[in-house]
C-alpha cells in the first residue's frame, strides 16, 4: 500500500517496528552504580538515552555548610570513592588557597606520590570493569590484583583502604611509615610488566577493538561544549591536563616534575608502544581512545611517583601541621579545580569569616562527563550502550554527591 509522501520502494523496505522504552538500571551491573538510563529503542537501535541520576544524593554540599572545612574532608572522599585521595587533595588545596597556606616541600612530594598512586588505582578499576562490561573477565582480575596492592600501601599510611581522609588542609595526617618507600618501589617494579599484560589482554585484543573502536565518537568541540574533562576530553585529542594547564596554586605542586599530557595530537600519542600502533578502526574520540588514554596515563603516573619518591627522600623538614579543626577562615570566595582521575574536580568555598564556610560547592567531573551520554548514544546499538558508558568511567557517588 502506498504511503503518501514516501518513496514506495523505501516504504516497502522499511522495517521500522514500534518504539520501546527500556529501563537500564538503577540496578544494572554495567551502569557502574545506581544510574538509571531510559532507552527509547527502535529494534536494536537506540534513538534516545536519558540518564536519570540522584539515587545516591547525600546533600554533601548542605553538610559542607554546616561543618568546618577539616570536618568536611571525610565527606569529600566519599564522593569519588575510587579516588578518595584526589578528592581530599582538591578540597584541601581549595581551602589552602583561601588561607594562602603553602605546604612544606616534603608534603608537596608526598601528595604527588599518593594522588598518582590513587590515579593508577582508579584507572585500573576503569580498565578492569570496562573489560567486564564487554564480556571479558580476566583483565578485571589482573587489574584488581594490582589495585589491592595499592590499597595495601594506603592502608599502611593511613589505616583505611577506601575512604582515607589522609591528605588534609595544611599537609597530610601522618608521614609515610618507615620502609614504605621501598614497598612502593617494589609495587612499581611489579606493576610495570602488568601494564603490558593488560595491553595484551585488552588493548590489542581483536574482540575488544571491534567492540570499542569507532563506537561513541565524541568530537573535541562537543566534548568542550559539554564540559567533559579528564581522559574523556583527552581521548578526543585535546591536550588539556590541569597538572600542566591549571591554576598556579595547583600546578606548583607538580613543579619540577616531568610528564606527558596523554592525548593524540597530529595523529600520534606522546608515548608510543613500539610494535603496537593504534588500530586502524579506531577513530579519535571513540571508546577505544578514551580507554587507551587511561592506560597510558598509568605509565605516566608511575613516572611521576618515581620522581616524587626521589624528591621526597631528598626534601628536608617535616610534612606540615594540619590546621586547627575549628580555625577561623578569612573572608572570600575561592574556586579551584584539580585533575582527578575521572576529570577536573572543582571545589568552591565561600567564607564569611567564620570557622564554618557559608557555602561549600563541589563541581563533579563525572556529572559533566555523563551529561554527554545522550549525545553519544543517539543511533547506536543497545549493546554499545554499556561500552560507551564504561568508557566514560563515571562514579555515581561523585555525580550525586
Amino acid at each position, binding site marked *: 500500500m502506498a504511503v503518501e509522501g514516501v518513496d514506495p520502494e523505501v516504504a516497502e523496505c522499511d522495517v521500522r517496528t514500534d518504539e520501546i522504552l527500556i529501563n537500564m538500571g538503577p540496578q544494572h551491573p554495567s551502569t557502574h552504580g545506581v544510574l538509571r538510563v531510559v532507552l527509547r529503542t527502535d529494534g536494536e537501535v537506540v534513538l534516545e538515552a536519558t540518564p536519570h541520576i540522584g539515587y545516591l544524593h547525600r546533600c554533601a554540599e548542605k553538610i559542607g555548610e554546616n561543618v568546618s572545612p577539616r570536618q568536611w574532608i571525610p565527606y569529600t572522599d566519599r564522593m569519588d570513592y575510587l579516588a578518595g585521595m584526589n578528592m581530599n587533595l582538591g578540597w584541601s588545596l581549595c581551602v589552602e588557597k583561601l588561607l594562602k597556606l603553602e605546604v612544606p616541600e616534603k608534603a608537596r612530594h608526598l601528595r604527588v606520590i599518593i594522588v598518582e598512586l590513587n590515579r593508577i588505582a582508579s584507572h585500573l578499576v576503569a580498565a578492569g570493569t570496562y573489560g567486564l562490561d564487554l564480556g571479558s573477565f580476566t583483565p578485571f582480575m589482573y587489574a584488581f590484583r594490582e589495585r589491592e596492592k595499592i590499597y595495601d600501601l594506603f592502608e599502611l599510611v593511613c589505616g583505611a583502604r577506601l575512604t582515607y581522609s589522609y591528605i588534609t588542609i595544611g599537609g597530610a595526617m601522618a608521614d609515610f611509615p618507615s620502609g614504605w618507600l621501598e614497598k612502593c618501589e617494589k609495587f612499581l617494579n611489579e606493576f610495570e610488566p602488568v601494564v603490558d599484560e593488560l595491553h595484551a589482554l585488552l588493548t590489542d585484543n581483536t574482540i575488544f577493538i571491534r567492540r570499542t573502536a569507532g563506537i561513541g565518537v565524541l568530537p573535541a568541540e*562537543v566534548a*568542550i561544549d*559539554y564540559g567533559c574533562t579528564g581522559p574523556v576530553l583527552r581521548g578526543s585529542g585535546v591536550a588539556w591536563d590541569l597538572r600542566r594547564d591549571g*591554576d598556579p596554586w595547583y600546578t606548583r605542586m607538580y613543579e619540577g616534575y616531568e610528564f606527558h599530557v596523554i592525548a593524540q595530537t597530529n595523529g600520534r600519542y606522546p608515548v608510543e608502544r613500539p610494535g603496537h600502533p593504534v588500530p586502524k578502526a579506531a577513530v579519535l574520540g571513540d571508546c577505544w581512545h578514551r580507554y587507551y588514554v587511561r592506560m597510558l596515563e598509568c605509565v605516566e603516573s608511575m613516572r611521576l611517583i618515581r620522581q616524587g619518591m626521589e624528591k621526597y627522600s631528598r626534601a628536608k623538614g617535616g610534612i606540615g601541621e594540619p590546621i586547627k579543626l575549628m580555625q577561623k577562615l578569612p573572608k572570600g570566595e575561592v574556586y579551584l579545580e584539580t585533575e582527578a582521575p575521572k576529570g577536573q574536580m572543582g571545589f568552591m568555598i565561600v567564607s*564569611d569569616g567564620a570557622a564554618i564556610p557559608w557555602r561549600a560547592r563541589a*563541581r563533579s567531573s563525572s556529572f*559533566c562527563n555523563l*551529561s554527554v551520554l545522550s549525545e553519544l548514544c543517539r543511533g547506536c546499538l543497545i549493546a554499545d550502550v554499556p561500552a560507551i558508558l564504561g568508557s566514560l568511567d563515571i562514579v555515581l557517588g561523585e555525580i550525586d554527591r
Partner: protein
Amino acid sequence: MEFSEIAKLVAERFGERVVGVVAEAIDPWIEVLPEAVAEVARFLRDEPRLRFDFLHCITGVDYLQTDPKRKIEGQPRIELIYHLESMVHRHRLVLKTILPRWKDGVEGQLPEVPSVCSVWSTANWHEREVYDLMGVRFLGHPRLERILCPEDWEGHPLRKDYVMPLEYQGIRGR
C-alpha cells in the same frame, strides 16, 4: 588576557548592565544584571579576543541571615556564579549575577534568570541542579526539571531557610 582587559572589554560592550568589577578578590569577578546574563555569555564565548569556550560550573549561593551570630552583608539575595575558562587563550573569568530571593518579593515565586544552555551545553545539567537545590528558574531552559532530588520533592534544600521535611512518601525523616 589579564582580568582588567577582559573587564574593560565587557564594560565597553555592555555599559550600565555591568554592575560591578571586583579585581582585588582571589578570583576576580564581573557582576552583571540578571537579564543580561545570556547576552554577556554569548559575547564572552564568541568575541575572538575572549573565546570563553569552557564553562566549569554554575554555583548558587543563598544569602539569608538565619543565625543571629552570623550577619550577612547587604540585602538577602541569591548569587549565581559562573566559572569560565578559555582553552584557546588560557584565561579564566568569574561571572556573577545577583537575584532576589523571591521574584517580586512574593514568597514561593522563584527568581528568574535567562538560561545559558544555548551557549554552553554544560549549563543544561548545572542549571537543573541549581534549580533543584537552590530554587532559581532559568528562562529558556529546554527541560527544567529536578535532577538530584525526586520529582515530587518540596522546597530547595540549599536555601538557608529550608526546613527538612518530617516525612516523605511514608518515610520518616529526622
